[in-house]
């Protein structure tokens, strides 16, 4: 088990370095240089190049970049706010994004799991059809469409929640973004839970449990839910990634000061350095989540955790 975890961590670090290298190459390929301000003289530009180490061979640059990144230094922003360290720029935004993302995942996973469970238990009834309908709609409609819908009808027309995020009420104003973000998670988890649960409800051990007198909630809780949770955990990782994508637009729509909206701003104002840094942070989060889920899977499933005896 320990060996397995170490191996996974090793793989993750390797992948991260590869990603960073790719990002770095892309950065170099970006059209124009960051200092193409026409007012700059040739000398001044050269001085800037030297300052940022842009005149050295590419592998040296990469190595420097790598060391900097490990120390948490992504360089400075060129366009959004000149010469501000990216770390500062990202700063609090990262935590806002993570908090809203976490809210959405937790809410989505719980609601989705409940929906899927109900659908499976009440198989072939109106409940089942309802859950299926909700999940199909949730999977099909992009989160920003939900966001718009919520903004227009709930916030604008209904006036229930604020139209945009505000620092003064970080929770209340994050309810609508959380809802619109979690729609996709709810739908996917519900779908997956339903099919897994159906399979488990049909299994031999459920039949044995019934034949030994278990019924109702006890039966479902002790045997079905536990066994369904294991595979459901595996689909959480890709879902969290989907959430990141969604968060980009949703943060923009609700003007949340998070890294998603920062990324959009950076893209729109061609601030490559920020884009690269954020891309790396996204990759890092993704890989860490995958790693955690992988390890979690091993911990939860006794078939992996407890080795077979000879």
């Amino acid at each position, binding site marked *: 088990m320990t060996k397995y975890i170490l191996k996974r961590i090793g793989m993750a670090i390797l992948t991260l370095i590869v990603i960073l290298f790719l990002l770095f190459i892309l950065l170099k390929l970006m059209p124009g240089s960051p200092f193409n301000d026409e007012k700059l003289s040739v000398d001044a530009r050269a001085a800037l190049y030297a300052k940022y180490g842009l005149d050295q061979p590419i592998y040296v640059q990469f190595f420097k970049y790598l060391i900097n990144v490990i120390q948490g230094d992504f360089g400075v922003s060129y366009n959004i706010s000149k010469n501000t360290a990216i770390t500062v720029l990202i700063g609090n935004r990262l935590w806002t994004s993570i908090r809203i993302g976490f809210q959405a995942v937790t809410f989505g996973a719980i609601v989705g799991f409940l929906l899927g469970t109900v659908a499976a238990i009440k*198989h072939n009834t109106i409940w089942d059809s309802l859950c299926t309908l909700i999940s199909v709609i949730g999977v099909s409609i992009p989160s920003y469409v939900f966001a718009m819908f919520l903004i227009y009808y709930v916030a604008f027309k209904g006036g229930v929640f604020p139209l945009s995020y505000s620092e003064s009420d970080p929770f209340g104003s994050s309810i609508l973004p959380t809802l619109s973000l979690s729609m996709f998670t709810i739908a996917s988890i519900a779908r997956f839970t339903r099919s897994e649960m159906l399979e488990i409800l049909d*299994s*031999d*051990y459920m*039949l*044995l*449990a*019934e*034949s*030994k*007198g*278990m*019924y*109702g909630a*006890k039966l479902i809780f*002790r*045997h079905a839910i*536990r*066994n369904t949770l*294991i595979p459901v955990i595996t689909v959480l990782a890709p879902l969290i990634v989907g959430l990141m994508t969604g968060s980009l637009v949703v943060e923009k729509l609700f003007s949340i000061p998070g890294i998603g909206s920062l990324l959009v701003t950076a893209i729109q104002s061609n601030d490559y350095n920020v884009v690269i840094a954020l891309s790396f942070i996204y990759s890092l989060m993704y890989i860490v989540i995958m790693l955690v889920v992988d390890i979690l899977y091993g911990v939860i*499933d*006794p*078939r992996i955790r*407890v080795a*077979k*005896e000879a």
Partner: protein
Amino acid sequence: MEKDKVLSIKNLSITFTTNSGDVNAIRGVDFDLYRGETLAIVGESGSGKSVTTKAAIGILASNGRINSGEVIYSFKNADGTERPINLLNFSKREMRKTINGKRIAMIFQDPMTSLDPTMKIGTQIMESMLCYPNKLKARYNDLITSENVDYKFAKKQNKQDYESKKDLIKESYKKDISEAKKKNQGVSDIKNDYKNKLKEIKTAFDNQNKNLDMNFKKSKSSIKEDCEKYRLSLLKKRDDKIAKATDEMKDNNDEEFIAQKNKEIESAKRDYISQTKVTKEYAKSRALELLKLVGITDAEKRINNYPHQLSGGMRQRVVIAIALACSPDILICDEPTTALDVTIQAKILDLIKKLQKKLGISIIFITHNLGVVAKVADYVCVMYAGKIIEKGLIDEIFYEPAHPYTWGLLSSMPDLNTNDKRLYTIPGSAPNLLHKPQGDPFTPRNKYALKIDTVVEAPMFKISETHYASTWLLDPRAPKVEMPKELKDRIEKMKGDFKNAKK
């Protein structure tokens, strides 16, 4: 000596709804299971042998429907009274609470899939004991269940009676009205009469219902009282013991004596707890005991194992332990050794036989292997296409079979002690019950088929008190047919083997 019937299935018929149409999987099955005996149901795949028992204990797949029949179980109440009761009148909830596991338990075919992979085997064994930890409540449930089932059944019956009476009146009314119209007579009298009649039966129905309700309430409260009395008696026993011990302690200063009395008090308290509650400690010790009983060595260690850590034979032993956890009367074994190796099969069969001797439970053994039947059964039912085609005592089925299908089955089973170069076989394969067979479904494969077989199925002909077979060959009008010579020789030889073995 009159034998004691534990379970008897009467005219059970089950249909499955599938994508491609309705399948009449069970078409009228009858059999009786006696206390302490083993009944074997033999049949090929699709003959409906395990569906029958699954229906009997209420775990039929959701697309199955019971059309008719009764499953009469001799229900032993907590207070020692015993009465036959139809299990098909039980709701799912009542089944689980009072029957499954506690009175009838089941072992399934594949030990690899019938254990929950994420739960320790000890927990799985203890589960059914700890599911209803309050013994007093369980006792009440037990007592009330049979009442409840009766009550509900009576109500249903009453309603059906009422409906049918109503239908009758309606029909006669219609007739009267039309006749009256023909004769141009006034219809108001008839209408009034009709209304009165309806009212009459309605009040009768309501009264009956009220009666039933009242009776049920009465018996409910009396059972409640009984239970309370029982609890109080237990409590009193405990308190008496404690009081007596404390009394005795008062006048004595001997430390040893006091310690002994304290112990008595403790044990009285413990007794009370064990009589009213299933404790975790008890469940665990029982689980250990069961694991030892089914022949698992180092049970203390094994109890914390997960299923994937055990071999197939071990897992089947665990499944047996689970089935025995609440000391059932009846154990249903659904092909428990089919998925196992021959040598392990021999061990498991041995174990089941030993357990039966020790615990005196009745067993329904479902299998397709006649050799296994020969080893374990007292009474045998041979099933084909959803029907029992021959049933009898084990010796009758193996030494004096009467149905051509049984002949075929027996002779297609290879025998280690003969040297035939060819096996006798039944041609063709079992029918697809999706397509309703005309007449006897075995006809196309039957070498001895009569013309009448293509028209109607044969009734159960009685051969002896215990031996029945459903084949027209036994009809007095049919030509006399002997079993195939190869089989006859073989049976003679087997009898000889037996005598040799005895010597």
